[in-house]
């Protein structure tokens, strides 16, 4: 026989068998580098496409460019890559929570190309989600090649996401936090180290390939107590903008789904409208980093009224691009809308109280971004750390915390689930580690089967049955036909107790007469969640499991609790260590 240890699967090497930390660190660094490269590639491609298209921007037909880009990207995704309608980050979260992070290989590059088409042509969307998706898929596929198990694979998927965010924003901590808070949903120490390594690797590779050219440069702000007070108001506006953006994307998405047209035509329609908006307000086009940079530097020329319109226009453009089927993420638009909101708020303050010594515009722009990220993604830590790393200073922490906290809580009140989780929550598919849903999703009826019941036949005399009762440890007895072995019903001890002590009935009553034939049964493929719900609804403690008219065993609440507890212990041990 061949040796079972394979040279291709390092997970089974002796060094890594008992402790896989080293393996995960090496693989994590690899994944971080790959997703960093993906981030740089998309970034450079976007720069190239934008430069290439710039001469045509001034033409009258320029509004058709986003339409063309969106249509091409939709065609590419659906016809060439056959991806299926794209969710981006939600798909990553779904695969992490349900399938241990298994992702298709094609996902590791398809979104890069399609989002490049959408954004490069002027669609209002962000490159972050596609890069996160690619990074995660790269991580997942590296794990697959290495033959890793679910836990290790999930860590590598997190590594991919962390590397992506770190590389884009030159912010390793934000990448780390994003991966833990948004993608994995748990703070396990075992995941932390590989993900941190991947975040650093992603940042470094981005430095190496495109120099210190980072989207946002460091800034220093003098923040007074009056600014801190003003932040509370800003948080309210960012929360409003978040809710507006979430709702409008979903509304347009549902509207677009209702239109009976090929997907690429719908995307083209959305792109066309965005292009028209862009004719009047070019700032809404593309991912918008350029506009953010200008605002942070305080060089954004348009006045208060125009900025307010820009907030709404950007929301509309983003909703049209993403809702109609363009490919891209929501992260960059969030930042842009946040900056516009912050800027508008700052200018309004200056207009109302010109005498007060307000901090520079740039500070409120940053706070607005944090507010939007916290509100839409319901990920306050990601927002806070991203801004801290961008500003490189600690002065902003206090207002940052205030804006993030208030914005998150307000949004949570109106939109209980984050933008990424919304679809999953609606389908009941959020299975965050250590939750009840997660534990129940892993348990299967087959695992809970109890087979120590003694089956009886309907033509048995009560006298014979009493003997079986003596031998059994259970107080219920499945009845099956003697010839066909088909399941007929169940005898519950409670129902027959009065007859058991009546010897007169021993030879006159048949088991078939005592049986409860209308008993609710479970199929071995049922979800344990459904089984539990039915048990609760009918106040049952046991249910027979029947497949193909054959009795397979019983499922009982006591075994369920026993196995549930074991499962919970195993799933959450590393969290409570």
């Amino acid at each position: 026989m061949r040796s079972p240890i394979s040279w291709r699967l390092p997970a089974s090497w002796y060094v890594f068998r008992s402790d896989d930390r080293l393996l995960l660190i090496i693989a994590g660094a690899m994944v971080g580098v790959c997703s960093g490269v993906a981030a740089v590639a998309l970034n450079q491609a976007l720069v190239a496409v934008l430069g290439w298209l710039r001469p045509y921007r001034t033409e009258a037909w320029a509004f058709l460019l986003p339409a063309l880009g969106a249509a091409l990207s939709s065609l590419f995704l659906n016809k060439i890559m056959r991806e299926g309608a794209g969710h981006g980050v939600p798909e990553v979260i779904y695969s992490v929570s349900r399938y241990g992070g298994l992702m298709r290989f094609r996902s590791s590059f398809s979104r890069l190309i399609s989002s490049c088409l959408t954004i490069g042509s002027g669609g209002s969307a962000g490159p972050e989600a596609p890069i996160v998706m690619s990074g995660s898929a790269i991580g997942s596929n590296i794990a697959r090649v290495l033959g890793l198990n679910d836990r290790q694979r999930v860590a590598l998927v997190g590594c991919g996401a962390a590397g992506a965010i770190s590389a884009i924003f030159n912010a390793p901590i934000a990448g780390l936090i994003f991966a833990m808070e948004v993608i994995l949903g748990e703070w396990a120490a075992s995941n932390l180290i590989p993900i941190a390594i991947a975040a650093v690797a992603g940042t470094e590779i981005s430095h190496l390939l495109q120099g210190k050219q980072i989207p946002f440069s460091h800034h220093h702000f003098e923040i007074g107590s009056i600014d801190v007070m003003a932040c509370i108001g800003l948080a309210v506006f960012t929360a409003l903008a978040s809710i507006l953006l979430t709702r409008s994307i979903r509304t347009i998405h549902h509207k677009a789904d209702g239109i009976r047209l090929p997907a690429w035509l719908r995307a083209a329609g959305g792109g066309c409208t965005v292009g028209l908006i862009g004719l009047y307000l070019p700032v809404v086009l593309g991912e918008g980093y350029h506009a953010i940079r200008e605002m942070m530097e305080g060089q954004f020329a348009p006045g208060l009224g125009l900025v307010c319109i820009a907030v709404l226009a950007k929301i509309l453009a983003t909703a049209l691009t993403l809702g109609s089927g363009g490919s891209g993420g929501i992260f960059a638009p969030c930042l842009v809308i946040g900056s516009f909101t912050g800027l508008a708020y700052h200018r309004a303050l200056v207009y109302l109280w010109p005498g007060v010594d307000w901090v520079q515009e740039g500070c409120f722009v940053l706070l607005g971004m944090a507010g939007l990220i916290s509100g839409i993604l319901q990920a306050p830590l990601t927002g806070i750390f991203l801004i801290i790393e961008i500003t490189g200073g600690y002065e902003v922490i206090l207002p940052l915390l205030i804006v993030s906290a208030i914005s998150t809580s307000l949004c949570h009140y109106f939109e209980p689930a984050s933008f990424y989780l919304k679809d999953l929550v609606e389908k009941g598919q959020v299975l965050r580690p250590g939750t009840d849903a997660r534990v129940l999703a892993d348990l299967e009826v087959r695992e809970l089967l109890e087979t120590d019941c003694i089956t009886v036949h309907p033509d048995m005399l009560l006298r014979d049955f009493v003997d079986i009762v003596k031998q059994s440890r259970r107080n219920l007895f499945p009845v099956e036909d003697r010839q066909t072995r088909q399941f007929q019903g169940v005898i519950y001890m409670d129902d027959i107790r009065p007859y058991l002590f009546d010897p007169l009935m021993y030879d006159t009553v048949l088991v078939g007469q005592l049986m409860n034939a209308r008993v609710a049964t479970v199929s071995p493929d049922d979800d344990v969640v459904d089984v539990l719900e039915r048990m609760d609804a009918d106040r049952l403690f046991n249910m027979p499991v029947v497949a193909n008219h054959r009795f397979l065993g019983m499922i009982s609440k006591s075994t369920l609790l026993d196995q549930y507890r074991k499962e919970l212990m195993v799933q959450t041990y590393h969290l409570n260590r």
Partner: protein
Amino acid sequence: MKLSIDQIAQALDLPQGKIERWIRQGRIPLVRHDTICTFDQQTLERWALQHDLKFHPHRKPQPECMQADDISLTAALRNGGVHHGVSGEDTDAVFQAAVERLAIIPALSKPHLVQKLIEREALTSTGIGKGVAIPHPREPESLGVESPAVAACFLEAPIDFNALDSRPVSVMFILLSPSVQMHLQLLSRLSYCLRQETFIAFLDRKPDETALLAQLSQMESPCEPSDRRQP
């Protein structure tokens, strides 16, 4: 160390499907190749301890159903022995004398057993009528007997046991068992025998050990569950 998945499932007392899933999810320190798992025993034991599980590599599969005829009265009686001419004025003294003769009880724990028998007797009489008593300790497992024993003690002179039918007792069956379950099984078997008038009459003749054992094994042989009913 190498074991197959079903052996591991048995050792941890978990369903096999669960073990397979845990290996896939990386929740258990096992490396799987087809059906064989490689692991480090210490690591796995530590893991089991941390997760409130127990790892016994050679655990036998649990019997599907405890058989009622695991212990035979004959075997128990052989353990306990038959004792004639046990003397004493009252129950306490009789217990004292009877326990002295029990070979399976170490000398040190004899006073303890006597104490237990007296305590039980104080609750209600174990004299079940027709001149028979079945003294036993209330918590059988506290004695540390390894196998069930029944000691038949024929008294020198009948004494008052405060029995149900107020008749003086001339025969005692002292029941000692390692668990309550066995105690109940022994009791059920004994009471079946004692319900037979012929057996009572047989006891009145104070038979010797061989005769008593023969009689009991003869009565026990049709004692299978299916034929045990009486009209």
